[in-house]
């Protein structure tokens, strides 16, 4: 199971790949909606990349429901913790 730090790097990397930013620009408090005006296709692409990187099914609500990148990492951490 990845540590929260490892998970955070995977998430921030997936986001920065889709948004064309540097990883450092994606912080815990970043809001993809407010700061980047992200659309649903971009969110789904981020989700698809995370599913591949983490070998994990990700519910769309985990992405759309997150208030910030940090919140999304927390939700994912809870999911991965539930894995066998």
């Amino acid at each position, binding site marked *: 199971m990845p540590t929260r730090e490892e998970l955070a790097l995977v998430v921030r990397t997936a986001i920065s790949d*889709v*948004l*064309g*930013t540097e990883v450092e620009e994606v912080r815990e408090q970043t809001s993809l909606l407010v700061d980047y005006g992200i659309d649903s*296709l*971009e969110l*789904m*692409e981020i989700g*698809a990349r995370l599913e*591949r990187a983490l070998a994990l099914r990700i519910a769309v609500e985990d992405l759309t429901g997150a208030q910030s990148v940090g919140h999304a990492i927390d939700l994912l951490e809870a999911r991965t913790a539930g894995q066998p």
Partner: protein
Amino acid sequence: MSGPHTQGAHPLGGRRVAVTGIGVKSPAGNGIEEAFTSVLKARSTAAVVGRLVDQDLPVHIACLVPPFDLDAYVTRREARQIDRTTALLLCAAADAVTEAALPPGLAPDRVGVQIGTGIGGLPSMEAVTLSHGERPREMPVHTVPRTMANSAACRLAMRYGFQGSCTTYSAACASGTTAVGEAARRIRYGQLDAAVAGGTDSAVSTVVMGAFARMRAMSARNADPELASRPFDADRDGFVMGEGAAVLVLERWDLAQARGARIYGEVAGYADTCDAFHIVAPQEEGEVAARCMRAAVADAGLTPADIGHVNAHGTSTVLNDRAEARAIDRCFGGQPPPVTAVKGVTGHLIGGSGALEAALALLCGARGVVPPIANLVSSPEADLVDLVIGTPRTVAPAAVLSNSFGFGGQNACLVLTPEQ
């Protein structure tokens, strides 16, 4: 009757249509002046493309757009969602729109986007098929918006908020000419006040190149790429694939003049017809193409004698060049003006060609110079048409007829008139 109130009126009704901005991303140069200089030098831009050699395709050569700073035009975020066909169009359009400096007061629904593409998103769909055909569940989420045929036009409309008619024309190799002509019609007859019009294609891909090669439509002069594209020459053996985009900003003449815009000239006439003869071969006597040329000249309110030179489609295939020479001969009743064909330099940009050539033709018509045809030494069609060979021909500034003919028997002709 003349004066400021009638200057904007087309002699055959409706409004005159001004060209107030031009942008190109083409093998001959990434600006219209560079492309103009390049075609006057009549040196081919064709070269061996390494990946075509690696893939063991029968044709190894193409005319590619020289590298430029894409980041200056497209954010990395947007670049991940679009293909090269769309990127080249957005870059050419950005240059054209910047140059035109359209006034901020234009109503968004009076500005349209009219784009031609012959191949559209097929190369990017081909890439997805090769990369994800065995793993369809992992396909990129943006596959549909990246590959759909109207992607380029709609990305362009989005970028500037142009909310008027946004249309994508697919008329094979005539697509760019069709788009410029249809855009001009929409302004002339009152549907739009301005339009961003042009064409784009970027299809130097394995499947597209392989498919054209299977028809033996392309030159296989792999050892001498710079000699491969030779419109109307006795030793031609097919066209050379190019890529690129060209965009013209068109405006109602009176509005452009009132705001003091730089006016390159006018899209004065347009016509399109279909051979309805064969799915790829032109009707060999050029009868329908000749009628298309005559109709375009008449649509401009001119007669064939008013045309200073012809920018031929001139692909460097025997079937096209021979039929086109016959068509030009028919149109001009045995007294054709000088004929040039810039594909000897640029290669065939498919959907991009018509728009690039309209822009070049307008500059040549205004400056009274007709580029020589690259690689043309002697032509079996020389008894039908006055082909410009060797050095640029000086002529009086005048209207130009620009031809495009496409697979499917698509004929499209524009008449471009310099500002007088």
